[in-house]
């Protein structure tokens, strides 16, 4: 009773101020803010916060402010499920962004899908994510869209005859990247001299690299996360390997090449985003992020930033009725129609093809950029 009268008072006050229609749009953000995946989760959260602040500063969406409900899912599957349920049933958010890792998405995604709530992944590249169901969206570009183009461009540039491969075999992201590389190499008929693996947390790759060196490849293909990639490149050069690297999504970190300095020069990277992309939206994003967090943004922050703008574009066309279930459904129907030009370039969704023919979710339909590292910086590769 008391609660209700309080609500009435607040409503009254708001009505007097003429803001009766303005309400907060609650959006859940479930990312790994502690634990091993925190290094991605934290920058993803930053990307969302930056975008939300910008949108709210410009008056919100149709006058409604965005309110982010941020929760830590620790990169663990049970935590992912718990956080999703809390956001859906207790905080009653309109939609959820996250979680950080594909693993957590496989566990938590079905929860959101069953509750008919949009779940929007910004960093989940694994195959099968959008098989979960029609409420699953992602703007993270899959490796299978990026790598064929990257390998083809590098092959042409360096006239590659044979390549060596190294990847992390206990991580879903790097392993699925490797699977795609393997398929691409078979399709493009590029022989592999040796395939080497490492596990998460490894810092010493010299045993594998020594073997790669002995096999004398023309290039080294690397399905690795940025933090491992830096050490792999540096240690390769330390052992006297001169062949260029070809990397996937994980290589797309300006920091990586800042660290590896000239050692990383000549590396081919295919990715939806690079800090040096000269588009004005991207320049503004990089500058604002730097100002707000005193750190360079990375791909994860960029994709999160774009994701909120994608959701905002969809929400612009949704008339919020106040009936949560109807609004959630309306948002799900509005999202596939969105097309924006974000910091990761032109973006739209495409319906996912599922294995078993059930209605699936929505994948990113985006053309990757091919970059070559020059002088420790990403430069757009100019395909002649």
């Amino acid at each position, binding site marked *: *009773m008391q609660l209700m009268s309080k609500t009435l008072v607040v409503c009254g006050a708001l009505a007097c101020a003429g803001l009766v229609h303005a309400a907060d749009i609650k959006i859940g953000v479930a990312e790994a*803010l*502690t*634990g091993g995946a925190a290094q991605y989760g934290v920058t993803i959260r930053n990307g969302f916060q930056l975008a939300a602040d910008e949108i709210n500063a410009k008056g919100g969406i149709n006058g409604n402010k965005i309110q982010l409900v941020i*929760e*830590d899912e620790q990169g663990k*599957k*049970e*935590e992912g*499920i*718990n956080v999703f*349920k*809390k956001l*859906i*049933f*207790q905080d009653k958010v309109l939609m959820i962004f996250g979680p950080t890792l*594909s*693993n957590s998405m*496989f*566990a938590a*995604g*079905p*929860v959101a899908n069953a*509750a008919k709530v949009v779940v929007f992944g910004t960093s989940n590249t*694994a*195959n*099968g994510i959008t*098989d*979960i169901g029609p409420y699953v969206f992602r703007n993270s570009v899959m490796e299978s869209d990026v790598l064929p183009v990257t390998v083809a461009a590098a092959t042409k540039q360096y006239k590659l005859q044979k390549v060596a491969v190294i990847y992390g*075999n*206990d*991580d*879903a992201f*790097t*392993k*699925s990247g490797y699977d795609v590389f393997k398929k691409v190499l078979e399709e493009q008929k590029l022989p592999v001299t040796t395939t080497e693996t490492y596990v998460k947390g490894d810092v010493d790759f010299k045993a594998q690299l020594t073997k790669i060196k002995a096999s004398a490849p023309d290039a080294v293909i690397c399905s690795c996360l940025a933090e491992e990639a830096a050490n792999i490149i540096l240690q390769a050069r330390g052992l006297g390997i001169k062949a260029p690297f070809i990397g996937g999504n994980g290589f797309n970190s300006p920091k990586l090449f800042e660290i590896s300095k000239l050692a990383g020069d000549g590396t081919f990277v295919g990715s939806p985003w690079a800090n040096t992309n000269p588009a004005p939206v991207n320049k503004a994003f990089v500058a604002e992020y730097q100002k707000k967090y005193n750190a360079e943004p990375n791909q994860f922050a960029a994709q999160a930033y774009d994701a909120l703008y994608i959701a905002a574009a969809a929400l612009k066309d949704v008339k919020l009725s106040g009936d949560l279930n109807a609004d959630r459904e309306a948002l799900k129907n509005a999202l596939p129609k969105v097309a924006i030009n974000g910091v990761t370039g032109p973006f739209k969704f495409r319906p996912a093809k599922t294995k078993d023919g059930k209605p699936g979710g929505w994948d990113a339909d985006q053309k990757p950029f091919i970059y070559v590292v020059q002088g420790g910086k990403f430069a757009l590769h100019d395909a002649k």
Partner: protein
Amino acid sequence: MMDWLPGNFSDFWSTYSTLVFSVGVHALLALSIWLTLSCGLLSLANAAFMGIGAYVSALLTLHLEWSFGTVLLAGGIAPAVVALIIGAPVLRLSGVYLAMATLAFGEVVRITVLNLEITGGPEGLNGIPLATEGWHIALLLALTVYGLARLRRSKVGRAFEAIKEDEVAARLMGVDVDRYKLLAFVLGGFIAGIAGALNAHFTFFISPREYGFENAVDILTMAVLGGTSGLVGPMLGASILTLLPELLRSLHDFRSLVNGAILVLVVLFLPKGIWEPRRIRNWLNRNKGKPA
């Protein structure tokens, strides 16, 4: 005015059902390690046994579409068989060496799962259908507690106790030490496997990293934190360690710091675990002695 109550409750249950499920599964795991501890064995293979149970059951559900009951049973039997095979050589070890050998066994299991095709490697198995319901967990937990309570008071329980107190003396008294140790090890594996199978069928997804070193230590921590003198302790410890991170959610960035601190403080001030019947009895008696 009353109709918001059930609504609220159903929201509450929707939000926290997985958490409650996890408490039940963790309680089973803590009991599984309690069983080996009660026989004086410090075995850290339970996370691996849980993993074997989870994978076997999930694969049976996904590929052969067995009924949930048989799947659960298979999830318990598979690790029990593995325990039976490795038990004979491993259980010759004592103290920390047994702990470390079982830990190493766990790593070998994890790495094997990681490199197999059928287990999905590091990407794990996804799309496991939801089959576990609250009453499944409640019933199996109740059965386990009942079974273990009966066991404790039986001849087997007394043999465990004797081995734990003094292995040499027990042997001299004619207790077949090796057989009883093997029994505890295999039964522990069975319970952990069932817990794994239950867990796999309400989290939609399993991957090798859930059954590694940290998880083995987590299971041990639950049992020891709660107290290993009886059956209540491990279940209490499992509940606390599962619920604590959720209760501390409002602390945000300080959450794991406080989580660690609580662990240290409990250990420091309640070194025999939280549930220690003698201490609680003493405390009650002391309070009774005081005039009201």
